[in-house]
């Protein structure tokens, strides 16, 4: 027992020495700034991950990989949207490659895992890539984790009021996948919609549902619209079956409903797609000159990329931009446990490619604008077009933080406003 203690303490002492040594070499080598990144080049979000790296490349090329005479070294890693894998990659980046800053990851559970890891680090910073789980910054926030993109609940800001007040729809049938991200989106919609007086009938389906027959049969007769919070093939399956069943209700989508899978697929669902409403941080068509210029630059730099940059490209770009702006502000100085850099990062204010102002709250979570979008036929291709926006949306949806936290985490049953009859 004693020998073991002794051995462990000797070993720890040795390791501390080694660490101090490596810290010294790091300080000497401060002429390069090492930025690591994690996105999903494998698994279900591989195309989104690829697009994210395109956008990061653009951000680095804009400044020619240099900050105040110091070169930026970019080390890329790939995950498969699983928390454990993202964590293993982050460890490798920090402990083996000795990076100063990590930008990533892409999906929700990965974000929470890296948030927890960042809390155990000293003098290192993790800036989110595109992950959008609310709790990453809402509850138990970490001082070393920053997020300059908005998240799932924020993305629905303004849509509930628009549907109730402008369209006069008093009852919607919610068709949503049964997991955390849709819960957050549903909460973002229902906070406004229920407060305005609307009623929601909830119809949940497991992820990867192929047969929506029973759900379509359960859409109430007096519903004025279908709120569809599904992604990818699930959304396509529902819309196809709903169109074939002769469904006529207007469709309101979530922020990931109207993605490329849905827009580019051909079939009966297209009848329902035109005019579909949604809300989110980006829209394919937006008059803001910054967006027009950014999309043009993206298409010129990556002719084999998407027609219009994806939401992941947009989020990774926004977060990378924030890192570069903060680095410029401190002249690339990462000494003193990155104290000056982290302060600059926390205080930074800039415009993202949509032309929306971005600033951080006390939990280092972005406050930014959210756009109402509509699907239009743009010369034969379906695209999303911005037609309104909610400005400066906070993570607490404009509510007081304690009041918002008291609402509890979003779930199947929270919030709830069923029709009265």
């Amino acid at each position, binding site marked *: 027992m004693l020998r073991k203690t002794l051995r462990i303490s000797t070993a720890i002492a040795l390791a501390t020495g080694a660490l101090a040594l490596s810290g010294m070499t790091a300080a000497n080598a401060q002429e390069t700034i090492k930025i690591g990144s994690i996105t999903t080049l494998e698994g279900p979000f591989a195309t989104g991950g690829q697009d994210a790296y395109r956008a990061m490349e653009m951000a680095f090329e804009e400044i020619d990989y240099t900050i105040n005479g110091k070169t930026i070294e970019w080390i890329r890693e790939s995950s498969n949207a699983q928390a454990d894998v993202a*964590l293993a990659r982050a460890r490798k980046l920090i402990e083996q490659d000795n990076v100063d800053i990590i930008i990533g990851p892409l999906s929700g559970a990965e974000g929470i895992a890296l948030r927890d890891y960042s809390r155990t680090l000293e003098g290192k910073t993790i800036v989110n890539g595109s992950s959008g789980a609310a709790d990453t910054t809402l509850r138990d926030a970490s001082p070393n984790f920053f997020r300059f993109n908005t998240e799932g609940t924020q993305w629905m800001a303004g849509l509930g009021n628009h549907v109730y007040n402008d369209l006069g729809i008093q009852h919607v049938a919610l068709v949503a996948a049964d997991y955390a991200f849709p819960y957050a989106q549903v909460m973002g919609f229902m906070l406004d919609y229920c407060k305005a007086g609307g009623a929601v009938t909830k119809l949940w389906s497991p992820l990867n549902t192929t047969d929506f027959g029973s759900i379509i049969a359960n859409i109430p007769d007096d519903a004025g619209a279908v709120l569809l919070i599904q992604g990818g093939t699930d959304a396509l399956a529902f819309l196809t079956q709903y169109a074939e069943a002769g469904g006529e209700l207007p469709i309101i989508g979530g922020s990931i409903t109207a993605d490329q899978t849905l827009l580019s697929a051909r079939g009966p669902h297209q009848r329902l797609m035109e005019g579909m409403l949604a809300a989110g941080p980006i829209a394919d068509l937006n008059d803001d000159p910054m967006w027009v210029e950014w999309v043009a630059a993206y298409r010129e730099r990556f002719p084999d990329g998407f027609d219009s940059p994806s939401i992941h490209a947009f989020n990774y770009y926004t977060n990378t931009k924030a890192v570069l702006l903060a680095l410029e502000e401190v002249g690339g100085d990462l000494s003193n446990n990155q104290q000056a850099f982290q302060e600059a990062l926390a205080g930074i204010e800039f415009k993202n490619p949509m032309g929306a102002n971005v600033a951080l709250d006390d939990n280092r979570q972005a406050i930014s604008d959210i756009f109402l979008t509509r699907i239009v036929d743009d010369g034969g291709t379906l695209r999303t077009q911005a037609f309104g926006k909610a400005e400066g949306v906070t993570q607490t949806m404009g509510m007081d933080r304690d009041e918002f936290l008291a609402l509890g985490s979003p779930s199947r049953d929270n919030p709830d406003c069923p029709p009265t009859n």
Partner: protein
Amino acid sequence: MAVMSPRQWALTAVVLAIMLALPLVLPAFWLSGILGRSLVYGIVALSLTFLASYGGFISLAQTMIAGVAGYTVAILAPTAIPASSSALSYWLAMPAALVAATVAGGVIGLIAVRTRDIYLLMITLALAVGFSLFAQSNIDWFNGYEGIRNILGPDIFGYPFRTHLVFYYVSLTVAALLYLLVLYVVRTPFGLTLQGIRDNPRRVSALGFDVALHRVAAFALAGFIAGCGGVLITFYNIGITPSSIGMTATVNVLVMSVIGGLGHPIGAFIGAVIFSLMDTFAATVYDRNRFNTLIGLVFLVIVLVSPDGVLGFGKRLLFWRKPKAREEQTGTH
């Protein structure tokens, strides 16, 4: 009834001594990120190798059982996020997790007691996938897709569990003890009966042994081993999510066992080290968008060149030398 021959004991002692001394030369990342990780996943692979090589059961449920232990310790942990109402200290949560894993192993053994070969594979796969989907959709206990976070582990001699050295030495100790346990058990009457069942269940049954009971007991013991791995993996990952026990994780453990070699318990750890090295550095040596191709190719080559894994390859090298040595001996006489 010796667990190992003197030569094997000596070899084990040398390997252990080297492993104990490694922290003096290796950087911190290698300790926890490569070796520590290999040890904890190797423990789960060990439970599979034990079942496969001494019982003839290829079970795909070992990752799931590790998950049962991981979720048990996570639900009971004092630092858990989201916090549960049933938080205990780690020193109570860990034994509870091991009991849960042993029971889960036994239950799986019971469910699968009449199946062999591909049917056993299917039934354990179904249980594994079912449990992972259940964890993903259950919010009240398992917190669904996001899982339970911030499982830091207890302090050991006043040092946080997550310190590289503490994690490494604890994993090494647990792995070595479980490895010796497996070697011991297979020499006991229970272990010998198990190997009899592997070779000819009917004859063992005719000799008056309760085959079903032995099978269930073997699964329970494998459950205990996988549970130890599951608890350590949960500490290593600072928490647990449904993806920790999903299809990919299940297949990863199978890959470790197979490339290491199912012939001997040490194969599990050899496989785990190769897997961790490939998983970590493949992206550095090969195109980042395509590094999975390299991983797949290496595993394919290993299995093609040596169907019984790296271990089998090593053994053949030895046996290839031995007859030669014997020839020389006869030559001198």
